[in-house]
């Protein structure tokens, strides 16, 4: 080991090595994990279903979190959001996109430092055959001021699909799950404090520069970039139009038709399967009348050996809400 390697090894957390004695917390965790296993296992053996240990409820209450089994054999409603259904539009894609862009540009700017959205993501456990659970999204509110100070608050949302199994607990809707407060200059962000651009070419460069997208980036990468951007900015009509116009000329972007997002709002779905050789379908749902971004969703279509989920399945969605918080 040379000097640099030694220096690197020394930079790791003090006193923590593979064979170091367990901390008090680690010892307590082990006791907690094993604590009520006999009773739990008898139940599991009796009905063939897993029940969560009481000790795991705290972790489970972290919500969103819901794994899926075989989507072809288990009722979809028991575990994951159902697949989006699209109603094709008669107009050509370029006509629909042009109209969305025009509608967006007609919208006034909505100056706001608050972002609100409902979010849910699947949890992937390699090799798991779990048949849990329920879908309880999170309600996220980001408040940021001009000094880049602010807070991120996460509360439990309502149960959307499925229901907790016996012995399992969902959080009360509205229950505070996490709150992070940031002093001036500390608010975590991907994009600079200056307003995002209002034309398509500049928007593309803006995303490239701030997200490290290069010439190999696919339309799906830009879909995700738009999602990241919308999570930080309440986009004006002109900014939203720039997004739509940017996506409209990208290879692999299609208008799937109208659909309802996870909040039941009707919109026009833009889709692409350009990432990872078609393993993912990225979806953006746009309000037909205003062009506003309503929802981002990522579906897994299969094809990646390291992801053992049955497919197709919903991996994550974000539904933005424009209503300002109290």
């Amino acid at each position, binding site marked *: 080991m040379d000097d*640099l*390697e030694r*220096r*690197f*090894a*020394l*930079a*790791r*957390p003090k006193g*923590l*090595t*593979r064979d*170091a004695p*367990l901390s008090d*917390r*680690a010892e307590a*965790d*082990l006791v907690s*994990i*094993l604590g009520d*296993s*006999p009773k*739990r*296992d008898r139940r*599991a053996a009796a009905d063939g279903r*897993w029940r*969560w*240990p009481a000790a*795991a409820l705290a*972790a489970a209450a*972290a919500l*969103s979190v819901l794994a899926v089994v075989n989507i072809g054999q288990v009722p979809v409603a028991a575990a994951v959001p159902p697949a989006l259904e699209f109603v094709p539009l008669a107009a050509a894609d370029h006509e629909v996109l042009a109209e969305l862009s025009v509608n967006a540009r007609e919208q006034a700017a909505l100056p706001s430092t608050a972002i609100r959205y409902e*979010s849910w*993501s699947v*949890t*992937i*456990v*390699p*090799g*798991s*055959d*779990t048949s849990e659970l329920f879908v309880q999204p*999170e309600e*996220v509110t*980001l408040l940021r001021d001009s000094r880049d100070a602010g807070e*991120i608050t*996460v509360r439990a949302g309502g149960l959307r699909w499925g229901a907790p199994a016996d012995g399992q607990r969902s959080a009360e809707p509205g229950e505070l799950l*996490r709150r*992070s407060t940031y002093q001036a200059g500390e608010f*975590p962000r*991907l994009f600079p404090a200056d307003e995002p651009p209002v034309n398509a070419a500049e928007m593309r460069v803006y995303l490239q520069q701030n997200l490290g997208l290069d010439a190999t980036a696919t339309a799906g990468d830009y879909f*995700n*970039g738009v999602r990241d951007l919308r*999570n930080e900015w309440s986009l004006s009509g002109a900014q939203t139009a720039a997004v739509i116009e940017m996506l409209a000329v990208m290879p692999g972007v299609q208008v799937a038709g109208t659909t309802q997002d996870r909040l039941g709002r009707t919109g026009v779905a833009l889709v692409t399967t350009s990432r*990872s050789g078609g393993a993912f379908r990225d979806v953006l749902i746009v309000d037909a009348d205003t062009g506003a971004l309503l929802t981002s969703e*990522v579906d897994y279509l299969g094809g990646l050996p*390291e*992801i053992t989920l049955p497919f197709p399945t919903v991996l*994550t969605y*974000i539904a933005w809400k424009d209503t300002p918080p109290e």
Partner: protein
Amino acid sequence: MDDAAAAEFSAFYRQNHNLILLASIGRVRDRHTAEDITSEAFHIAWRHRQRGGELSLPWLYGVMRNLVGKEYRRSARSRRLAERVIAFEPPLEFPAESDDEPLHSAMRKLRPGDREILFMAYWEELTGPEIAEILSISQENVWVRLSRARAKLRREFEQAPLPPTPLTSTEAVANG
């Protein structure tokens, strides 16, 4: 669950707990969060074992990576980074427990895959065969990637501007 299974799990826990904690710290920067992730990973492992699943380090490591991805999604800091975890391309950031800023700076310039294999080898003390199994690559490939990452780190480190030379006590007094 019989005593033998509990004993087997306890041994697995004691053998791998610190490793998973180290690996979590390398990805989330915040030790408290890393401890939560480690705890949750072993809860999942215990459930997996109770359903008759086999426990192994590569499996547990994969669980930890996915929980890290979930944490990133939760924090809403970067959906993009979270998806890299889903695609098994962590780690995400260089942890901040040490104050060796020149080293941190050099590490930040490396690709995620290069950082990860350095963490695995020097922080987590994983053996070549263990790294190979976790990453699903051959041992030869492990050594190639590790050598390449070491070379890149050395290059970045040597190209970094030298930190200011600390003042001697005499100079410090003279400068007030």
